[in-house]
Structure formats: C-alpha cells, structure tokens
C-alpha cells in the first residue's frame, strides 16, 4: 500500500473534535505519540479504523481523523474482530483500558489474542476506573483505597502481560506514557506485527490515581527501574548497564550484578521463541511497579492471522466449487417436478 499513500503530517491524523481529557492526563501523550507515528506507517487514513469500548481512554477514536467506533464497555475486541475478519485490507486498532479490557472485556480480549486477529491493541493501564470517577480496577494493587474499597481492595490484581501470554498472544509489549520515543518504537513494532499485537501502556490518571507508576517511570528513576528488552541481546539495565538477568537451572529468573556473573551468564532475550514461557517469566520479573520492570517487546512470533485464514478458506472454496450459484444451492437437497 505504502507507495500509493500520500505523505501526511500529524495534522492530517487529527480530527476536528475537541479533546476532553483532564488537563495533565497521560492519555494526551499517548494520543500525540500515535498521531505522530501514523504518517510514518504508510497507510491511508481511509483504511484505518480505531475501535474502543467505554472509558476515558476509549474516547481516543474521536480524536483520530480515521474511521472509528466508540462501542460499548468491554466489547471493542469483538467489534474489531468483525471488522478485521470482514475486511483484512483494513488497518484495525483497538483502544481499551484496564477496566474495559481486563474487567468486563477480558473474555473478548483473550479470545482475540488466541485467534490472532490482525489487531493492534493498546491497553491504557492506569490501574483505576477513570470515567466512573475512581473505583479500583483489575490491575489496582492490593490494599488500594478507592470509592468502592474504603477499607482497601482485597482483589489480587492481574498482570496484563501474563494474561495476554497465558492467552496465546503472538505479540506482547509494554511501554509508558512519559516516554514518547519508547512508545513510538513499541507501537511501530506492534503495528508491523501481523496478527494480534497487545501493548500495555502504563498511563497516569492524575485525577484518581496520580503517580501510580512514578517509582519506575519517573525521569530520575527510569535507568535503574526500567529493564529495556531487546531481542537477541543479553538482558542488562541500570545507569551503567551494571545489572542483568539470569535463568537458574531451578527455572527461576534472578536479577544479578553483571560483575558477579559475567556478561556471558546473562539471559539473552528471545522475543521470537515459539514457547511463550520465557516471555512469561520476564513478565513476572516484577510483581509490582516498584521494582525493576521490563519494558519493550516481550514476545513477537509469527502465526497465521485469523482474518487472512478466513479469507483463504473462502478462496479455496470458490476455487474448488466455483463461485456460489444460488439456483443450484436451492436444488442441492433434491427436487421434484409438479406438472
């Protein structure tokens, strides 16, 4: 497609709708990152569809000058599946939140991932229900005090990446709203992936859950707290890349000082491995957002894309039987003549 597409700028991808997020909301940064990335992707705006559910994050499609559906709570992956299966020629994005995508919409999400529907799924994880004014979400930490948990939440949270990996996702990544460059790289890779690409974006809700990710995303904290994953490279991090990750023969990942174990002992990241176990282990490396946390592309493996598969079966059928003939179909169970 790309060559056919005229050069565009951020402006071309920006709709005329006024953006209605709270001042300071992390969503703005994500919107900008996407609007600035689109011109580089070589797709025509008329071939792009953004589908969302309900939530602050789900207002996103209104702000993109593309086709879009602001559907209902939790159902975006289902609606998007219909679009991607009906029209494999389209570039379909799903915008969802931690409540929209993991609470009410959890089932649609994991099925879209397992089927590997060709969707670029961005989950804005702010660990809270924003639009409904601050109840805890499936990613809120234990003990969280919110409007619906005045004595603290006792719900063990989901790790979105574990859920996705447990659900056969072929592409899984994580980024955060404060680093546009990182977001852009991750989004580009997700978009390039054929099939379902799941991206968790740590997003700050400055009104109902301000600073949730500060411990790892804060400018001064990042170098020590963010473990940036690169396929084929030993996993190292820290201001001087002095720390690393190793796998023990007991099947447990551990953080180490590179000096102690030597570069060669470090685990080499393999995002393309068929078996999702390594990606899963990396996703569990930090059980919260207060210790060193891997970011980037955890998993990216090739697998037949669902919509293409459906189309292929149609093609085969027509090739085998020829295009459908209605008159013939009506006679297919045997007929008789009445004179």
């Amino acid at each position, binding site marked *: 497609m790309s060559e056919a597409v005229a050069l565009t700028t951020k402006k071309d991808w920006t709709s005329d709708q006024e953006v209605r997020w709270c001042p300071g909301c992390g969503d703005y940064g994500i919107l900008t990152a996407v609007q600035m990335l689109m011109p580089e992707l070589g797709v025509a705006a008329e071939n792009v*569809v953004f589908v969302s559910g309900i939530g602050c994050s789900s207002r996103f*499609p209104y702000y993109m000058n593309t086709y*879009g559906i602001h559907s*209902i709570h939790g159902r975006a992956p289902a609606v998007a599946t219909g679009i991607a299966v009906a029209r494999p020629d389209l570039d379909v994005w799903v915008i969802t939140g931690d409540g929209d995508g993991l609470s009410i919409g959890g089932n649609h999400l994991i099925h879209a991932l397992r089927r590997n529907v060709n969707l670029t799924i961005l989950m804005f994880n702010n660990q809270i229900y924003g639009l409904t004014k601050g109840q805890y979400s499936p990613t809120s930490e234990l003990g969280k005090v919110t409007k619906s948990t005045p004595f603290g939440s006792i719900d063990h949270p989901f790790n979105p990446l574990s859920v996705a990996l447990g659900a056969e996702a072929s592409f899984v990544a994580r980024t955060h709203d404060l680093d546009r460059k990182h977001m852009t790289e991750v989004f580009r890779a997700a978009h390039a992936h054929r099939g379902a690409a799941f991206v968790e974006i740590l997003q700050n809700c400055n009104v109902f859950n301000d600073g949730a990710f500060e411990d790892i995303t804060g400018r001064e904290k990042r170098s020590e707290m963010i473990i940036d994953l690169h396929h084929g490279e030993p996993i190292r991090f820290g201001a001087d890349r002095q720390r690393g990750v190793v796998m023990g023969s007991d099947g447990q990942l551990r953080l180490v000082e590179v000096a102690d174990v030597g570069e060669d002992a470090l685990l080499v990241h393999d995002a393309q491995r068929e078996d999702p176990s390594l990606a899963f282990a990396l996703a569990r490396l930090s059980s919260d957002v207060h210790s060193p946390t891997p970011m980037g592309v955890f998993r990216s493996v090739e697998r037949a894309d669902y919509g293409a598969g459906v189309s292929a079966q149609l093609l085969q059928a027509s090739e085998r039987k020829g*295009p459908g003939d*209605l008159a013939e*179909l*009506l006679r297919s169970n045997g007929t*008789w003549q*009445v004179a």
Partner: protein
Amino acid sequence: MTDIEVRPQPEHLRDLVIRFAGDSGDGMQLTGDRFTSASALFGNDLSTFPEFPAEIRAPAGTLAGVSSFQVRISDHEISTPGDSPTVLVAMNPAALKADLRYLVAGGIVIVNTDSFDERNLAKAGYAANPLTDDSLERYRVVEVPMTALTMTAVRPLGVKARDAERSKNFFALGLISWCYSRPIEATYEWIDVKFAKNDMVRAANKAAFTAGFNFGETTELFDHPYQVDPARLPAGEYTNITGNTALAWGLVAAGQCARLPVFLGSYPITPASDILHELSKHKNFGIRTFQAEDEIAAIGSALGAAFSGHLGVTTTSGPGVALKGETISLAVSLELPLLIVDIQRGGPSTGLPTKTEAADLLMALYGRHGEAPLPVVAAYSPPHCFAAAIEAARIALKYRTPVILLSDGYLANGAHPWKLPDVADLPDISVPFATELNHERPDGEMEYWPYLRDPDTLARPWAIPGTPLLMHRVGGIEKEDGSGNISYTAENHEKMVHLRADKIAGIAKDIPLAEVVGDADAELLVLGWGSTWGAIKSAVAEVRATGKKVAWVHIVHLNPFPSNLGELLSMYPKIIVPEMNLGQLCKVVRSEFLVPAKAITKVQGMPFTSAELRTAIEKELS
C-alpha cells in the same frame, strides 16, 4: 425387485400421519427423514414434526430417551404435520408408552416385539407387558420381531451382532415403505451415498431395508398395502425443506440480492445452531461464518462487519437475544444494518431447549434500555423462512437498522415442500454506499456528516472504511442530528429519540398491507403471527367448511404493523389471537388499537393442533 409388480392393489388414502418413535440411539430421525424424502420425491404434500430429548443420549430405554419423528403425507395441500398419527411405529416399550397417547383411536401400532423384554418394560415404567394385557385393545397392533429379522438378514454379510442390530431402523423403513407403497430406488441410492465410506454398514442397511420391505409383502401383515397419491400442488419444481435450512438459504440469497458479502457472527445454541452449520458450508458464496466466544461477541463482530460494509447477521435463540440486548441498543444508536435471528424455544431461562415456543416477541420489541425501537419480522412456515430472511435484510439495509427476525423450534426442524422461486425474480435489495462529502460548512468547505438523513427513509448514509475522505467516528453516546458529533443538549436528544422512532414507524409505508383470508364479513377475526400459521390455516378452513364464517389475518411484520391493521381489526367485534405464549401480540394490539382482542394461549413446547384452534374458534362463534 420384479416381484414388487405382482403385489395386491393398494388401497388409496388421501392423507396419512405416521409417527416413528424409538430410543435416541435407534435412528428414528433418520428413518423419518428418509420416509419424508421418498414421499416428497413421490410428489405428496407433506409436513413433519421431529421431537427429540435435550440430552444427547438420555439413558437407553427410558421415557426421557424417546426420540420421535411425525410425518404427514397427503394427496392434497396441507399445512400441519397432523394432530394425531394414524400409525405409530414403536421401536421399544418407552416409545410406545410415551407416544401412544397421540395415536387416533383405532390407529395402527407397529411394534418391535424383540425390545419388549423385562428390562425395557421396567425402564419404560410398564408393570405388565402391554402387548399381552388388553391395554392396547383400542388399537390395531402389528407385532414384528424387527431385531431378530434384521439380524437374520444382516449377519450373513459378516456384520457383528452389535452392529447388525443397528440396522433395524432400516428394516422398519423398508416395512413401512411397503405398507404405504413408497418408491424404494431413491432410498437405495441414498444409502449408497450416505454410507459410501463404509461398505459393511452400507450393505447391512440395504439388506435390512430390503428384508423389511419383503417382510411386509410376503407375510400377511396387511392384506394389502396402502397408497397416498401425489398431491395436486401448483406446477413447478419442489424441494423439501426445513425452516432452518430455508432461513440459512434466505440469508445466502439476501447477500446475493444485496450484492454484499454476508458475515455471520454466531454462538451455537439449540435450535439455531443448524443455521451456523449450513452457512459455514457455503464459503464459495463469499459467506464468512465466525463462531464467537459468546453471543455478545457474536453480535459485536456482526456489527463490526456491518460497519465495514458487509451484511451482518447473528443467529441465536432466546437466551442469546437476552445477552445481546445491550449491543442491539448500540446498533440502534449507530443506525447500521444488522440482522438478529431468534429461533425461539421454551423458556424462561434454559427452559425446554429442544421444544418450541413463541414467547420472545415482547423481548424483541422492548428488551433494550432507553427508547430503542427496531423492526421485527416473523416467519410463518418452514419455506417462508427463506422469504422472511430476505425481507428482514431488505428493511435492515434500506433503513440502516438492526432487525429482529423471529422463527421457532417448530419451524426450524419441521419440513415442508417448497416450490422453488425463480432466482431471477428475487428482489434487488442492494443499497448504495456513500462516496461523497455531503455537507457544506459555513466556510464553504465540504465535509461528511454521517447522520445527515435521507428525507424519505430517514436512513443515514452508509460510508464504509476504505472510502477516501469520508473518515468518521460513530458511537453509542447521543449524537448531534446531522453531524453525528457527541451532543448532550436536551433539544437534540429529544429530536434524535423521535427521529429514530419515526424512521422505524415510517417503514409501515414500505410493507404490504395486511390481508384478510376467509370471510371478510365474519363476526370473528383470528389474528395470527409466526408458526401458528399452519394450524390456523387448517382450523379456519375446517370451520368455514361447516358453513360458519370466520376471518383470518396473519402478519409477518410485528413492528411496524401493516398500516391497515388497526382499521381491519376495528371491523370485527371479536378478535382472538392464538399464540404459543401468554398473549404477547394480543397485549400489543390491544394497546395500539384499543381493541378487545383475546389471547388463545398454549405454552406446552408443542405447536397448536388444528383441532385445538377449531374448538377455540367455534367457542367464540357460539
């Protein structure tokens, strides 16, 4: 088979109702189907009524495990499978116990005596053997050791005892084929095709079939066979079709008539699953079938496909429609074409999954939050499911609205001959996609307004992804009339609520008027909808045959109603509405037209018999 020629002359019957009954494992559905096809090809008019348990295979020999297939064949036009069979084929005691009650007094019972042993009698709950005590004296009992005879016919082929026994339904079919002079070649051919993959089984079934046929002839079973001549149906080419097949083909046809690819998003559920099965076979028609993770995803995907320019369809039964309510409400707000097919079954809740009912009408009309009106269309016979599907699609596409198409378990599984339409005569229901900017801004710039309506139909334009310049966003929040931008203003909301209502109400201009069948000047009007059609048709005919006057209106469009319905209803002092629910259409017409309509209800998981309706009508007339 030359010996068939010399057989005694058959006695002619005008009409025959046979009920095949046996254990779920006995293959009664197959037997009934075959008998039906043979009769169809022979040219009889016919109507079938299969009944089977909700369990895959309830315990062998028990009442819960009985599976039956009732078929009526005749030499004249008929519209029901018959109130009560004249012949009951009972493969085991449970079948006899469960179905004898339906048999006409003096009817024929053909039993497989081999199955009437202690164990089976006990399982069926018989204290004594009904064949030996006098409990069957009101009937003509024909005892045949079918299992043994089948064995003798089949074992020589080297079939294992257990498998040989399995062929006994073909023995029964052969026997009945002789009794009622059915052509047999077609059945031999069918066996060849059906069991092509398994020589042993094929041979066994053929042998059993032949043995049954010859047994009827050689023994003094009846002194002569019977014969039901072909029916004088309107000239044309016919096929025998069930409601679900007709509906599936109707959807295929709708796609062709609309020149759109069909997308079916569905989740399996009895009795709707067969539509998914049928459509999934026809990928060469460009039909995409998607088995979703649940009913909500099923309709969600169909809605997404509709947004993308496909004919979006979702098929289900009552519990599924209940789950789809929120998404249907979204579809009403998005104003996109969408078909929701509800094959009704017994409720509430899981209810009677394999039995019929028509109690989803009010849910179809009102089962959504907010003011969310949509058209409702109901099929009335197995063949009509074909036309109903095309009509529902026509309305959905032309008015950009979700449409609910109602059928039920009785139509879904029942079969009836269908005079094939000429494909060339099917309506063109295609609609144009929007391709141009349609609104001029104050600054003279042109832009696309997704909610700028056709003044005539009030339908909004349908611009699909891939169309240059028409990029737009739609959503479930209230939209500004015209621009479609989010709007929370009071006036706009009221306007949009009325526009959506007026759009649906306006469809009345675009559907056929209701027609009175029978005596326009009668005192009593029978108002019907859905699958009660067959029983009402024959009941009305029977009553009128006795010289009494009665009028009948059967409606296909339940929202909006035909524009002349109110006027028609107001012409009759008495109105009865037979329904397989507690009076749902009756409620609606009473409210709409303030007429004293009275509901005639039956909620038994079974269709009305014509006798029941005849009684109801006569009661009103006297």
